């Protein structure tokens, strides 16, 4: 069996997982919110693209609109819930985003029902042959974009003043606020950026897989697995994690006898990583309780 097509498909999907993971990671590091609604935001963006293209809008405009909608939804949630979330622990922050995921899923199911749709980006029509595997331009875009976003984020975090503020917030919120960082502005920027990234990845995933509300919402699972592999810190390891999970899922689906278990790959990988991470952890217990 020629496994190359599966590897290529896995790398492509995996790169979008990684791309999406970067959005989750940036938001988590800056605001402390692990956004379980990241996939749902992407799903909404993709459905908006589908809808506006149906309404005969220019595809490029439609895509821009979808990405903007993703950023807007995330920003809105950040604006409304952010001040409350700043006061609760990380677990509650994450739980609150489960609420957002439910709301978005409900809206999508209400407006568009759960029929599977497809969007076909223009770039997917151009394809060529690489060692027996068909590769289209969208897939190249996925791979390139993931790499670009990882490098771009690293550079932005290092060299822009907003990036410096984000890193300051990630290491110590109180201190950052004391030295005069506009915490709310930085957090809102993180929400909008991560929402836009969610929108891009949602549209790409909808093109590569299928445009279905619940399916896209729960693509947060492999994305979270990628972030777990990145230990919630490393952008590069998140990229590696995303690619590994994508390829892993794709290869498992290559064999009919085990293909049904391919969605269990993120769970298995994340569990193994958590186990390994545990073993390395020194037994320290926070003694002071608030």
């Amino acid at each position, binding site marked *: 069996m020629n496994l190359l097509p599966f590897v290529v498909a896995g790398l492509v999907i995996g790169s979008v997982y990684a791309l999406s993971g970067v959005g989750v990671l940036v938001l988590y590091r800056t605001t402390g919110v692990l956004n379980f609604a990241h996939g749902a935001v992407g799903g909404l963006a993709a459905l908006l693209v589908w809808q506006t293209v149906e309404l005969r809008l220019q595809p490029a405009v439609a895509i821009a609109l979808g990405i903007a909608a993703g950023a807007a939804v995330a920003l809105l949630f950040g604006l409304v819930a952010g001040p409350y979330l700043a006061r609760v622990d990380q677990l509650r922050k994450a739980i609150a985003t489960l609420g957002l995921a439910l709301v978005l899923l409900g809206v999508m199911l*209400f407006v568009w029902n759960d029929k599977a749709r497809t969007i076909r980006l223009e770039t997917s029509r151009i394809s060529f042959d690489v060692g027996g595997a068909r590769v289209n331009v969208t897939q190249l875009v996925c791979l390139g974009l993931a790499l670009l976003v990882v490098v771009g984020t690293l550079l932005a975090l290092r060299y822009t003043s907003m990036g410096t503020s984000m890193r300051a917030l990630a290491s110590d919120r109180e201190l950052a606020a004391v030295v005069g960082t506009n915490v709310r502005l930085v957090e809102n920027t993180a929400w909008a950026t991560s929402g836009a990234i969610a929108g891009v990845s949602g549209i790409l995933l909808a093109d590569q897989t299928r445009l279905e509300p619940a399916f896209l919402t729960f693509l947060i699972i492999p994305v979270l697995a990628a972030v777990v592999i990145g230990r919630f810190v490393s952008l590069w390891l998140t990229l590696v994690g995303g690619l590994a999970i994508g390829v892993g899922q794709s290869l498992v689906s290559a064999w009919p006898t085990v293909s049904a278990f391919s969605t269990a790959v993120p769970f298995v990988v994340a569990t193994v990583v958590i186990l390994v991470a545990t073993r390395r952890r020194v037994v320290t217990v926070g003694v002071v309780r608030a």
Partner: protein
Amino acid sequence: MNRVLLAAFLARAEVRSALVGLAIGLVLALVLPSLPGVGSGLALRTLTVCAIYALAAAGVGVLYGRLGLVSIMQIGLVAVGGWATLRIYHATHLPFEVVMVLAALVTAAVGVIVGLPALRLSGLSLAIVTLMVAGALEVLVTYAGFPNGGDGFLGRVSGGTLAVIMPRPALGQSDDEFFRYVGVVVVVVLVLLRWLLMVRPGRTWAAIRQGEAGAVSLGINTVAHRLLALAVTSAVTGVAGALLAASSGILDPTSFKAQQSVLLFATVLIGGAFSLLGAVLGGLFFYGLPQLLNTVGLDGNLVFVVLGLGLVQAVTTAPAGIAGQLGALWRRLRPPRPPRPSRPSRPSREVTV
């Protein structure tokens, strides 16, 4: 000495509210079917399923409210319980009660295996892992289906063979009887759970919730006791799966989607995770609300929107949920009693059922 202890035990608010809850629960379970309008048809069947999901909700509630653990895979575990029930029944034809206990044990084992690695890390990793399990179980259940009397491990009939349906328990054949049967099982399980919360495991869980360091220095093996909690709540959820399987004798994979697990978690937080009354409310919201929306002609999917907003509100502003607010209301409305210094004081607490 023992009588003094017993008197002090009965004087505690939580004990009395538990007894009140027990009484109300039993009365509801036995009387509800004979009420006009409820007595038959869709309404009763809906209430039956609501009561069943109250058990799954209780599992979520105990984990979150008593230990601060987030489990988003509970509907997946209901499916595991249901699958085990059908599988064991078709293989052995044992009485339903025996099958139900065995299915609860299987579900407990699955819950423990899943939670074991995640429990050593922060609470966030258990949330992540259980969400992944919810996703994986949805696919597995869709792939494997539920046993319906066929051959092989999966027990699916194929070709033109007719599916075999598991009969209802002998004591609950008709819809009325089955509702009472479910009601009694649910009340008994909730009472057992309540009792567990008041004795050594419950005390230990409270100490763990308060602080890891304090708990360890008391000599508590925190990992072992968290696993115990997972085992207990998973077993309770397995009972829900068994009852659900008994309800129609056959199960449909589409009822066990990952988003249902998220939805159940939301209903429990909205209802109130700190008391079992909140769990019962959670069960009602989870299954009753979509049915209600459907009957008044609204899209059932709006439930996601309503409960999602409710979840955000519960997390940010009302951590004790509706049950907590009811409890506060009850305390406000109740005339203050003169203090009786000769007796042990009655601590005021959330209303607990």
